[in-house]
């Protein structure tokens, strides 16, 4: 069976052990985690865990069903029609061209967020594929450090 990528949101009770229940399920059953982000849902007792995963159809089905069995899981949303964003922060040496990099960030919905004595930091938030392109493009400016966030998604 062929593998496909899927982004799922897991709406969970906001309790301390819930992340380990979810990530432990993935580890124990051999499911793939591409990225994982978690944050409380504003004005509620719940959190949203967004997971980008991949697998064949049977595995993806199992992931949803097994997640649904966890007691603190309210809902599992398998995203289909979604807006999906990922963030990346890149630290550049001060010697690189600030103007060029600012333009590059701008092309990917980003900007320069910090300038220090010896370095400056660019930030981009965009679709995962475009974030990858940005990172490729940024390579020629000798980045010191690249920090990628996980995917967040919302149904359209």
């Amino acid at each position, binding site marked *: 069976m062929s593998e496909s990528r899927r982004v799922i949101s897991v709406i969970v009770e906001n309790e301390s052990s819930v992340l380990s229940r979810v990530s432990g399920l993935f580890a*124990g059953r051999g499911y793939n985690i591409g990225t994982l982000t978690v944050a409380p849902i504003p004005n509620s007792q719940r959190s949203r865990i967004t997971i980008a995963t991949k697998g064949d159809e049977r595995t993806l089905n199992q992931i949803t069903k*097994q997640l649904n069995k966890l007691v603190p899981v*309210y809902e599992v949303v398998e995203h289909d029609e979604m807006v999906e964003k990922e963030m990346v922060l890149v630290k550049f040496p001060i010697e690189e061209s600030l103007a060029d990099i600012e333009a590059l960030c701008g092309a990917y919905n980003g900007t320069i967020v910090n300038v220090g004595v010896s370095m400056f930091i660019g930030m981009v938030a965009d679709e995962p594929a475009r974030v990858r392109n940005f990172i490729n493009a940024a390579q020629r400016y000798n980045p010191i450090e690249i920090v990628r966030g996980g995917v967040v998604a919302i149904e359209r």
Partner: protein
Amino acid sequence: MEMNGAQMVCEALVAEGVKTVFGYPGGAIMNVYDAIYKQDGFEHILNRHEQASVHAADGYARATGEVGVAMVTSGPGFTNAVTGLATAYMDSIPMVVISGQVPQSLLGTDGFQEIDAVGISRPCTKHNYLVRDINHLPRILKEAFHIARTGRPGPVLVDIPKDITAEVAEFAYPTDVNLPSYMKVPKAKEEDVNAAVEAILQAKKPLLYIGGGAVLSNASDAIRELAELSQIPTVETLMALGVMGNKNPLLLGMLGMHGNYASNMAMSETDLIISLGARFDDRVTGKLSEFGKYAKIIHVDIDPANIGKLVNVNYPIIGDVKDAVEMMIAGLQGRVNTEQYNDWREVLARYDALYPQSFEDSDEVIKPQWVIERLGELVGEQAIITSDVGQHQMWAAQHFPFDRPRQWINSGGLGTMGFGLPAALGVKKAFPDKTVINVTGDGSILMNVQELVTASEYKIPVINVILNNQFLGMVRQWQTFFYNDRFAETDLSFQPNYKALAEACHGIGYDITTKEEFDAALKDAIAQDKVAFMNIQVARFEDVLPMVPSNGTLNNMMLPKIANPEKGEK
């Protein structure tokens, strides 16, 4: 009412109707034991090992259908309990285990006897809790019992720090649970059942494939009725023995790795598998790509995750087996023609006549299969049989005439050696008037043999039938078949004196080498009110047959040699 957390635990257990708790004390759980000392709402049985406490609670649960309860201390007490949790988890047994934990002030400091119980038990419990606030304790206990027994049942761990069992707060045991995130117990959908009914009416060679879920949902009567109404032949998994009753002409027997010929052939040739609470375990299916090759599949299961996990299902029905079967009966009533599957049943009857479940008996040495058949003749219906893991377990499954569900108690999913004796204690506590027999091996019985002492102290007279082949027999069998007779670390001919061992623990022992001795010893053991060891020397190199080698196809079995009367064989 105000009370401390320890008293709350006792009050909750009483409110849940718990009569027997199996456990073992230690530092972190001492407050609760102090409360147990002062109460008389339930009995506490002190096993001699925490693993045994959990297996005993498990046996109690399997025999009664109620939630079993075990109690252990933190650290090593808890880790000893893990095998018990995993055993119950794999077979979906309702159970609540309460463990002590270090005080909250020490949590996360590697305190004395601190271990992350919730972390360790996450993959082998249905759910677990670390209690962080005395005010949550009543709710958590209520939820634990609710989760353990509803939906697909399973064990729940409640880990309670010592300061919480000491702290005093207002106690009111909740009457309801409020768990919005807990999966609703699904109800079989009318349209799904209707589709399945139509498929049954279309089928030429349907087969009822019954699993442990049928026992858990108390669906035996309904399933017997469904089979009777439709005259569809049935096979049972290791976990379902007794659901149809061994005298039922529609029962072909057990299927799978050590299933009988007719059952495995039926599964290979059926055109419609009607799975009732079974989960297509690899010990049942053999090679998946060849499994049920010509069949459409109806799959009834309370756990949606079981459906489509291993095989593609044509007619999924998510819900309780008993409800779904009753709906099927209603749908088939007046419509199903009982002659419809005559040809199919005839084919299967011929298969069964060709290779019935058989063995070659002997006059020189006791055959293990003979012991089981004889046991069936002598105690049959009135006994409850527990078992350990190995050849003896398979022979018990193949040859004992189980005629009702919950009469056969064994660790199917995890295959835990050492389960049988403590489980038997739990069963006997629940049914003191029944003869409870643990069919075990000379390997398995030594795992948890300390429970002889528990049995003697509390006068729980269970009988251990030890099929002593001086081998880890099942492993030896694989070595014979697949490792060219290299018996690596499976020879157990260095033996303890089993009779003396039983006697040293205030039980009674019998050394048995002949059939007559067996009959006499069994009679005597039943009459005694002592825990008994029947140490039976059986044929050392007997193999469990038929056998479908791991990942083989079901219709390709290693079979026992059949007698050829023309050559003068019997």
